[in-house]
């Protein structure tokens, strides 16, 4: 009898001693992480901990001062064009081209990422339906509310079906119904094999949707571990231990 061994998830993202100075201070220091396909990692930290800088570097919007980024085994810093097809990024506050409609926005994002013709049209229609953006499709992005912009940004990040989804505070300005829909969407993407890394201030967000949590403090990684569904008090203790004392002694205690 032969036993079928499920294929082990491959490493999509590998950060190797990533460092970056920003605004005159060390925003990220020697950060090493790995993320497998289908895994959802939450990046926690107080304001200024280096979460957005880390995600910008992973997304390819910012170059690190030192260290390496491997994307599906390839050197991302050597080939930044990998970002075009492999990464979907929702930046903090979801910036938009105010002069374009929602549909035009998705088209522009698709074209920038090399999508064309019917391939682009089908992907656009599918993502508009999936994120229920039909009523907004012909509206100018400049007049959307922050929550609507957030959904548009998410649609742009998902349009080209990336292998890695980078979400910077995706639940910002979303109402509770939309937050629940966002969580379902993230789980759906992970089930389809997409690796997801998201930053948040909300511990409940991490316990609800993430498999792993990494806690950053003053640019360094202070904690990296699995998240259990009923793990909220322990996570809270770890987070506050790091945020208040700069170490995760509280967790050890």
């Amino acid at each position, binding site marked *: 009898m032969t036993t079928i061994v499920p294929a082990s998830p491959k490493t999509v993202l590998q950060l190797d001693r990533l460092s970056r100075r920003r605004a005159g201070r060390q925003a990220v220091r020697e950060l090493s992480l790995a993320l497998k396909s289908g895994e959802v990692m939450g990046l926690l930290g107080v304001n200024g901990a280096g979460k957005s800088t880390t995600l910008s570097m992973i997304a390819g919007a910012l170059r690190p001062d030192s260290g390496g980024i491997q994307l599906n085994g390839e050197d991302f810093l050597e080939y930044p064009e990998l970002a*075009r097809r492999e990464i979907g990024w929702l930046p903090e506050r979801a910036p938009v081209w105010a002069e374009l409609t929602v549909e035009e926005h998705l088209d*522009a994002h698709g074209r920038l990422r*090399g999508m064309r013709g019917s391939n682009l049209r089908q992907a656009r229609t599918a993502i508009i339906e999936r994120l229920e953006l039909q009523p907004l499709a012909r509206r100018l992005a400049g007049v959307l509310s922050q929550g609507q912009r957030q959904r548009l940004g998410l649609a742009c990040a998902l349009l080209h079906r990336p292998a890695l989804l980078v979400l910077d505070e995706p639940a910002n300005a979303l109402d509770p119904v939309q937050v629940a829909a966002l969580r379902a969407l993230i789980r759906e993407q992970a089930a389809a094999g997409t690796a997801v890394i998201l930053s948040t201030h909300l511990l409940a967000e991490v316990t609800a949707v993430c498999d792993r949590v990494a806690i950053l403090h003053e640019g360094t990684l202070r904690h990296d571990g699995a998240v259990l569904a009923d793990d909220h008090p322990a996570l809270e203790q770890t987070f506050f231990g790091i945020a208040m004392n700069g170490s995760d002694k509280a967790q050890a205690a």
Partner: protein
Amino acid sequence: MTLLAVARLEWRRLLVRPLAWVLAALTLAWLAWNFTLLLGNFLAGQIQRAAQPDGPGFVDLVGVPLLGQLAQLAFLVVPLLGMSVIAGERRNGTLPLMFAAGVPASRIVLGKYLALLGWLLLWLALTLMMPLVLMHATHFDWGKLAAASLGLALMLATLAAIAVACSSFASHPAMAAAAALVIALALWSVNLGAQLAGINGGAINWLAMSSHLQPLLRGLVSSADLAWFVLLAALALALATRRLAADRERG
């Protein structure tokens, strides 16, 4: 292909921006008014000129002066239109979206430049339509009009490159417009002092834009003049690319 995607995105943004339409409407109305005045003067002097077989024609008295008016307007229109191509993106936080799509800085700059240049060439073409509607009604010096049009196109291309470069360095679009205006005016009039002193050659005259545009407006096409415009535009675009690449490095 990403170059075309950037150009298309910028073109779309230009077309829905009220400033582009307002500038087009006001300047074309001004040029049309000037065209009728120039045409009126041309018709009034037609009998006297009939006695001079080699006297100035329709293109000399209407076409080229009209293009001269457009050149003057360009000093204001190009900085206003180009001010937000990169500075506006930086302010809105949309520039990192292009970096994250793996688009190199050179293609971002070139794509935006092509879109801006497309608008300006359309503006030039609409202006040229005014004298061209009378091409069958008068003797038309095609060579002189082509040379003058080429000169204007090169001038617009150079001013657009300067506007894109200023926009890449400025944090605010208004600063970019002011810088582009000052640089363009300085380039135009850098040799004024030398000319007042009776010096008509040398590096200072070579540096001035007017020294290279005036011969083209007179119908004289020289490769040295063409090279001056191309070199200056290339330099400005290279500086803009360098600045944008540094933006990605610095964050």
